[in-house]
């Protein structure tokens, strides 16, 4: 649960942001680059001092936790490890800081698949291996809450599938899993809830299905040889756009209403189906107005 503001000089990175992350779910934390995701996560972990407000984990401020690693496991970017230290020693030092038994280090190395390279220096690790080590560090204290910043970065397909299963499993065990990502398709598969921010402000906080449903443009794909139908639909107030694949994308009336209209003007219909928005579509529409640095212009969203 958070209500916080964070400023760097006159730049407001996080502006009066407030949301809750419930246990038993994977909650995706979404937002464009520079929207304040990492800052928010650092504030949760007590690493950045908020200008106003603050974050609480299980009702407590982070620095009030007696053994933080046993409550909150965190990953803030890969490579947060001394390159000359072995994976084993990195985890051992962390384990000792919270009085976690040494054998747990071996368990965790097994879980993240680094047992065979445990005695190798982390400097020689690939990005994906570094990411696994970071996830191992997060799991070390068997925490109830996980805060992971971009955990799929640098992982290959197998690694991404692994982490998806892992995160869902952790949530199914009743843990709170809070994951940031810029990969919408991945989040759609992994998360069941989302918190969306833009320019440091909350844009949405909802279940993934509910979020897509509420923000979808209600588009229907229609393929028909009859130009009359298009005129008829437009007369009904529908927005009709040409789809690159040849048909139309109709905004407004649902499939039943379109079929009725086709029957009335005697038009044949070759294809008629609702277009389901993806998380990415909805996210792009919502964050369009709050994107800080726009790469390039793209099609006007159909709404």
């Amino acid at each position, binding site marked *: 649960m958070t209500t916080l503001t964070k400023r760097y000089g006159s730049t407001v990175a996080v502006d009066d942001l407030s949301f809750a992350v419930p246990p038993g779910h994977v909650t995706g934390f979404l937002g464009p680059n520079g929207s304040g995701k990492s800052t928010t996560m650092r504030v949760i*972990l007590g*690493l950045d001092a908020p200008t106003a407000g603050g974050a609480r984990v299980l009702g407590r401020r982070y*620095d009030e936790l007696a053994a933080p690693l046993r409550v909150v496991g965190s990953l803030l970017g890969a490579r947060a490890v001394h390159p*000359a*230290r072995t994976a084993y020693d990195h985890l051992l030092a962390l384990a000792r*800081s919270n009085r*976690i038994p040494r*054998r747990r280090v071996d368990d965790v190395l097994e879980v993240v698949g680094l047992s065979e390279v445990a005695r190798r220096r982390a400097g020689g690790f690939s990005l994906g291996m570094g990411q696994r080590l970071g996830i191992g560090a997060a799991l070390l204290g068997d925490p109830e809450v996980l805060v992971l910043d971009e955990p799929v970065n640098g992982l290959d397909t197998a690694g991404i599938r692994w982490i998806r*299963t892992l995160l869902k499993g952790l949530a199914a065990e009743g843990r709170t899993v809070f994951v940031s990502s810029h990969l919408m398709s991945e989040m759609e598969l992994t998360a069941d809830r989302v918190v969306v921010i833009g320019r440091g402000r909350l844009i949405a906080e909802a279940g993934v299905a509910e979020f897509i449903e509420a923000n979808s443009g209600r588009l229907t794909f229609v393929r028909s040889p009859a130009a009359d139908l298009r005129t008829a639909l437009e007369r009904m107030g529908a927005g009709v756009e040409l789809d690159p694949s040849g048909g139309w994308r109709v905004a407004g009336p649902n499939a039943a209403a379109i079929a009725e209209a086709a029957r009335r003007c005697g038009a044949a219909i070759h294809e008629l189906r609702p277009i389901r928005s993806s998380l990415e579509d909805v996210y792009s529409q919502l964050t369009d107005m709050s994107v800080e640095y726009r790469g390039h212009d793209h099609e006007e969203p159909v709404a």
Partner: protein
Amino acid sequence: MSTPSTTTAVATPLGEGRAGFREAVWSEWTKFRSVRSSVALAGLLGTVLPLFAVVVAATGSLQPDDTILGASVLGGAAIAQVLAASLGAALVTSELRTGTMRVTLAACPRRLVVLAAKATVVAAVVLAVALPSALAAFAVGVAMLDGDSYATGDPFPALLGVALALVSIAVLGVGIGTIVRHSAGAVAAAVGVVLLPGLVAPLLGFAQRWLGGASLSGVMQKLTQSSDASVEAVGSLGAWPSLGIVAAYTAATVLGAVWALRHRDT
């Protein structure tokens, strides 16, 4: 890489947890001994004093009124101070550089505990290395220099004081490293702390003895009863009270570092 498993079930019972000072010291010790370069630096620190004692004794580069104790210990003292400071600073700057500090602070959010643990580990390491090293340097001097031409000097507890002075600058290095944040900057600052008093103090007239007396080199000169330790150069305060002054500004620097670590983002 082996195939990662997706079970997170805890095979090992985790017992009671705590992230206090003892745990932090354990953790810092594990980190220290698992990086080869810091262990190597500590080893180098151990060889500097006896090595320079050999050089000084072999070349006879000491004043007629100097003590054997002073001549054998002071030769490598400045270099040993810089090494000790670098060792302390590296404990912090290497973590800031690699982002490991975030992991450390997430595991132990209390900044004072983290810095105190780092200071404790570096102090223990430097004491364990510097004391035998100072003894060895003195032994070299006694063996190689003519005891009839030079006063021996009183080695105890002076040699312990020399080791403690090196402990002090190593802890100062932890503080400087935290405040300056970069290895190169921290080492430069440490070199400044070691060498500047000797360069600047003679320019200050009556204030020379104050600056000289509170400098580490001044403290070491007093401890070893060196001929350099004239009242004009380093004041009339005794060796141990002077060491107390050094310990006091070291502690103040570390407290400043705690403040910086609390109020800056990592």
